[in-house]
Structures are given as C-alpha cells and as structure tokens.
C-alpha cells in the first residue's frame, strides 16, 4: 500500500531531528558547559599558556594566603606586608588572566552555538525549502477524505503523497514520547508528600 520513496531524505530528517531532540533534552547550557570543560582540559593539556598560567597563579595565591595566615602580622610585620604586596600583585594578574580566559570562553560558546545551529536548525530549513515538492510516501488517491489528503500533502506535494511536514511531525512526536519514557526511567522518583513532616517544618 505504502510506497517508500526518497529514503535518503527520510533518514536525513530522522537523524537531524534525533540530534535536535538529544540536544534539547541535555539542555543547551549543560552542553555549552561540557564543551567548555572539555576545551579547557584539552587546551591546558596542549599547553595553552593562559590556562596553565592561570592554574599556577591560582595555586600560588592559595599558597601565599596560607602563609600569610600562618604568621602573626604584628610579630613579623615586614614579612606579612611583603606577602600582602605579592598577594595583591598576584590577584591583579589572576584577574586579567581570568578576563582573558572568559573572553575565550565566550568564543568557544559562540562556536558551539554556531555548530548546533548548523547541525540542527539549518538542515531542517534547507529541507523544508529544497524538498518542499518531494513526495516521501504514496497512497492511492481517494483513500482518505479530501481534507486529510490536503493535510498529508503539506507543504506542496500532490494529493496522494505524504510531504515533509507530516514526516517531521511524526518523527518529533515519536521522539518526544521516547524521551519522556526514557526520562521517566532515569529521573529520581518524586517523593511522596509527608503530611506530618510538612506541618512540622512550618
């Protein structure tokens, strides 16, 4: 009854929508954070000077602070003040370095955002435009009522064909059901409200 056509378009849309669903269910901020962590690990392994220096300086700062706290300011005033001076100097340096790193973070975020758009949003719109007249499935004309046939033909295919819009809608609803089920298994159960405890706490 159903005649499968243009299977490459079908799979392309499927893959793109899966990717999109995965990204939304992970959450974009989490993804950005993960990517940044990965980048900073890789960059400091690769010996990018800013990261290495920042980590080193932060450690030094902690060291100085420890030392400063371990001595009496009044008994060893000169030493204490010298530590203060180097602490101030170091923290200024750390601040400028941290600023540089955060600019870099903004760049990385921008790149990741761009990649996400390129991988998910762009192909969908491309397909919507490019395959607007492509028929993905066929069914005998007159099989469904006329209104439904018009709907199935969205956006611009002939009657008796199933278009891209309906395929995307179907894939999306299946994926969201799967995500819902999967999250139901993964997420911790909501605790039963304990009436006694809640009145006590108030």
């Amino acid at each position, binding site marked *: 009854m159903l005649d499968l056509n243009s299977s490459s378009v079908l799979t392309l849309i499927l893959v793109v929508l899966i990717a999109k669903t995965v990204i939304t269910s992970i959450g974009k901020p989490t993804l950005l954070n993960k990517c940044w962590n990965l980048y900073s690990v890789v960059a400091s392994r690769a010996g990018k000077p800013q990261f290495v220096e920042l980590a080193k300086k932060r450690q030094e700062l902690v060291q100085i602070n420890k030392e400063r706290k371990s001595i009496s*300011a*009044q008994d*060893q*005033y*000169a030493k204490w*003040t*010298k530590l*203060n*001076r180097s602490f*101030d100097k170091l923290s200024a340096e750390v601040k400028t370095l941290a600023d540089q790193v955060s600019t870099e973070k903004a760049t990385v975020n921008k790149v990741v955002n761009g990649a996400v758009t390129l991988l998910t949003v762009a192909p969908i719109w491309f397909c919507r435009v490019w395959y607007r007249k492509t028929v993905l499935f066929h069914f005998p004309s007159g099989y469904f009522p006329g209104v439904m046939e018009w709907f199935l033909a969205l956006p611009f295919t002939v009657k008796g064909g199933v278009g891209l819009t309906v395929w995307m809608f179907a894939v999306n609803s299946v994926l969201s059901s799967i995500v819902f089920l999967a999250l139901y298994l993964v997420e911790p159960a909501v605790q039963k409200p304990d009436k006694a405890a809640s009145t006590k706490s108030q």
Partner: protein
Amino acid sequence: MDMDLEIEPTLQSVILHETLKWLFVGGKGGVGKTTTSSSIAVQLALAYPNDQFLLISTDPAHNLSDAFCQKFGKDARKVEGLSNLSCMEIDPEAAMTDLQTQAQQYNNDPNDPLKSMMNDMTGSIPGIDEALSFMEVLKHIKNQKAGENSNAISYRTIIFDTAPTGHTLRFLQLPATLEKLLSKFKDLSGKLGPMLNMLGGGGAQKQDIFEKLNEIQKSVSEVNEQFTNPDLTTFVCVCISEFLSLYETERMIQELMSYNMDVNSIVVNQLLFAEADDCKRCHSRWKMQKKYLDQMAELYEDYHLVKMPLLGSEIRGVENLKKFSKYLLQPYDPKVDNGLVFDLEETT
C-alpha cells in the same frame, strides 16, 4: 662614595627640591600630621627666605590655628614671626553644595526628570567630592592672585595638610571615570533628549550643566597632570611606630602608587628614644617602637625614613616649630639633642 648610595633619613630631598610646587602631607588621624606639615612649611620658609610659601589645611577639624597659635581663615594669612609663610583653612564640603545649588539655579522646574538625575549623578561619581574640594582650593588660590593684582603673590610651594579621611586623593583616578561618564550621558541625552524636551525640560539648561561637567573634567585632568609629575609634586606620609598606623601607611602608599603619585618619604613620629631614661614603661614601649622601626627599615629601604622624637608637650607656636622641625633636616640624635624634649617654650 658610600654616602651617595645611602638614602639619608631626612627630608632634605623634599625641602631642598628645586622645582617642587605641591607637597602633600598625609596619614591617619592623631599621628602628628598637622605638626609635621607645619614643620615642613616652617623649614621651607626658613630655607628660602625670599620665596613665599602657602600651607593649606583641608581637614574639616582645622588645627593649623592651634599649631601656630594664630587664627586662620579661608583666605591666606601670613604667619606672625615668619613673613614668607601663609596659611589657610578651607572647608572641602563647600564646593559640593555649591555645585548642587548651581544646578538648581539652572533648573528650577520641580517636575524636570533630568534634575534629580543630575543631582544623583554628580553625587555618585567616585572621587568627585574630593576633586571638587581641590578645585575649591585652587579657586581660592587663583582668586587671591586676581584680587591682589598689583602685588600678586606667587607661591614657590604649596603644602597641603590633608584630611585623615581615607581616600584623600582618590580623585586622581577621576578624569578617566568622568570622561567615560560624560560620553555615556551625552549619548543618552542625545537619544532621550527630544522626549525629555517634549515632557517639558529646557534644552539650554541642560547644555549649561554639560558645560559645567566638561569644565570640571578639564580642570581635573590639568590638576591630575601636575600631581602625577614627580618634579612638581610629592607626598610625605606621616605615621607612628605602631601596627595599625604602619598598616594604614602601607595601604596609602600602595594607593598613591596606583595613582602614579610620587612617594619617597615617611616621617615616623612620637618615638621615645628611651635608652637613657629611667622610666620602665618608656623602655618597653621604645622596645616595641624599635621592633616596628626595624620592620619598616626592611620594607621601605628606598624611602627616606625620618625619625622624630616625642616631646614633653604639644608643639605649638612658630618658635617651637622651628626648634622641632630642625630635625627634619638633621637626624635627631637622642644623646646630643635630648634637651629638645623639655625645651619647648610655654604657649597659651
């Protein structure tokens, strides 16, 4: 040869400086700031009898009058017994209220939204009150010159006895802040201006306020340029040999350095030099002072550390100041100069 490398523990480099125009004396309250600034002024006046000097106190709790046993006001007045030194006491608060009343004059429509904005803005720029008080000071000096045009006094050096309140010289970072703020504000009023006009604000008055702010910015940058030039301006820190005073001094020095101001002298006041005394408490207190002195010597090895003794009574009057201030130029030796401690003339 060795002597040249050693940094002498006196204020000679300050007092015998050729081009110095502005000299600031600062420190926390109660460390002898006024005594020190008066002493420096007296020594300067004695060193150059043919030049005029001016000592200005910006401390709201004015005590120059007490130090010289003579009443001073906000116009420069000559010190009796030292004809080339004048003093004045200026209230730094006056300038701020001045600006605000002026803003109100320009703009007396109570419904103008710009009015309260201006007040808030002028009040909230960090350092503007200090800047204004210095402007007030400079205005006074200028006025004086203009007023006595026939025999205009030009001062060789002007000595400031600064107020002990924290960031006396915070305004040195003001020009940059002000510039940023002004450009932002101009932007904003360019966008909102027509709307505000429609609501009933006068354009000309706003222009006036801008001009005023611009003027302030210009004169602040001028002053700033002079104050950060080590050939023209230097700062003398005053402290006593105790923990908190040293700590505050260190912070002040760091702050001044961040403003690119020249600091190379520290006066340590109220030292006991109790070696030859019988007093047990003096001995132990002197021991403590020596501890901090040693630490200071280590910390400020490239500064002039001037050690001044604690005397038996308050140092008041020109004659007493002359006696005391001698030791700014020539290190105090407790064995030889011990007589100074109880040698002050009675003043009432």
